[in-house]
């Protein structure tokens, strides 16, 4: 599938609020996602980052307006929405002995050639015949990223794509996200690592866990005071980098 030119509007959020188990996680979020753009969602544990992604993927309900490619998300059938959005989240269970290749085949009706090539990007070609249960968490995460790459949807919603990964594959997947953006993919991703976020974010959504949500350009919001307050943890600036100040924690 050819993706559209950079700058076409893919998603529009207007006054979006998300509740989970009766608790208001975030409210009044306005935001726009374009093709060829990465929005990174940052916030402390339990603030509602994953819930926001689930709501955007239409997997849980949210109030406010969510538009996908110009139409309200609620007007899509599950099947049509699946063609527009791909969601990456928790690792799938391993009890039933699916092999890596079978898991990838479930991601999309696709030819084995593209399975081989996406598996190659994530270094899992030698694992294709293994049952998922024999893999480490990091290897399973690489399988999930390969499965994601098989989804030819214009929009990707990613919940911690670099979780469980070793350094090499963190870099590999961050580069993959950038390459996908440059091909016109529109991506919203939750990340925990501030360096990774700074490496890819065009815009940021900051969720404070108290109902507040803020959206803005990355270069404005990457501010040590603001992020220190958000995470309730000291951050210091080293040149162009924002790093946790481990000495500052008492």
């Amino acid at each position, binding site marked *: 599938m050819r993706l559209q030119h950079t700058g076409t509007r893919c998603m529009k959020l207007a006054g979006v609020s998300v509740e989970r188990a009766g608790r208001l996680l975030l409210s009044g979020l306005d935001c726009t996602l374009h093709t060829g753009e990465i929005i990174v969602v940052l916030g402390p544990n339990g603030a509602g980052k994953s819930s926001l992604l*689930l709501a955007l*993927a239409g*997997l849980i309900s949210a109030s406010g307006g969510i538009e996908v490619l110009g139409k309200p998300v609620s007007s899509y059938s*599950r*099947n049509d*929405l*699946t*063609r527009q*959005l*791909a*969601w990456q*989240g*928790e690792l*799938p*269970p391993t*009890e*039933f*002995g*699916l*092999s890596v290749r*079978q*898991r990838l085949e*479930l*991601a999309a009706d696709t030819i084995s050639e593209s399975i081989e090539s996406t598996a190659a990007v994530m270094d899992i070609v030698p694992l294709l015949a293994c049952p998922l249960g024999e893999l480490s968490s990091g290897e399973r995460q690489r399988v999930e990223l390969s499965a994601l790459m098989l989804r030819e949807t214009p929009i990707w919603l990613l919940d911690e794509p670099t979780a469980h990964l070793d350094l090499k594959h963190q870099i590999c997947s961050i580069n993959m996200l950038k390459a996908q953006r440059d091909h016109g993919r529109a991506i919203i991703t939750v990340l925990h690592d501030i360096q990774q976020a700074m490496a890819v974010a065009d815009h940021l959504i900051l969720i404070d866990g108290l109902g507040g949500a803020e959206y803005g350009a990355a270069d404005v919001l990457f501010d040590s005071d603001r992020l220190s307050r958000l995470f309730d943890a000291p951050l210091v600036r080293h040149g162009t980098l924002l790093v946790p100040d481990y000495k500052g924690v008492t």
Partner: protein
Amino acid sequence: MGGQWINPLHAVGSINQTILWELRLPRLLTAFAVGGLLALAGAWFQVLLGNPLAEPYVLGVAGSASAGAVVGLMLVPESAWVMSAGAFAGAWAGIAIVMFFSHLGANRMLLGGVVLAAFWSAVLALLLSLLPEQGLYRAFSWMMGDLSHSELPVPVLLLAWTIALTAGLILSRSLDTLLLGERHAEALGVDVKQLRRRLLLLASAVTALAVTAAGTIGFVGLVIPHLMRLLFGSLHRSVLPASAIGGGLLLMLADSAARTVIAPAELPVGVLTAIIGVPVFLLLLWRRS
């Protein structure tokens, strides 16, 4: 009479011919269909509940069917037909309650089902304690699996086997996707709520039919799907047909043994399914590790 070999080609015009065609063959076919239905139900419940330990009786359908069968036995002590009708009604009473749980997640549904199963076994114990002594033997042999009194016509069971397998194959791609968990399945376009309802109804209906035909026969529904996954992989387009056939063959074999080992008396077939199936399963498990 169970120990005698009847050559089908020479069983002409004799009592042997009658035994073969009117007793043995229908019973073999009943065993095949019931075994296949139990294995299919087991495979479905395992996926539905996301739990490899699930089996056809996990949500209490066998308990409610047994309670119904015993009520039938109390009402009309000599009628196998009334007992089967009681089992069928009991099974559906159990299913009706289970359907209220269909909107819950897999774990809570499993918990609810296990509690319900405990409830039904208490009801069953109560009924058994009230049952006149002469009915007890009949009740117990039914509860351990009994293919000698099946009241369901063989063509009905074979038709049910065919329909169940076909329905399973139609759903097989969605079932595969459900192996990734409900969220992933939904994100990949599966209507998970609808699939769960269908699966619950299908698996329960099949269990109800199997229990009505042959009482409660353990083990087939738990182990055959796993055995087939070990042999043929996890995708349902292979697991379901293999289970429908493998479950059928296991129960045919077990029932033939149950009938002949201590002939003219019969062993409960549920004992034989476990005695044959457990070593085979453990052997495979051990060789694969």
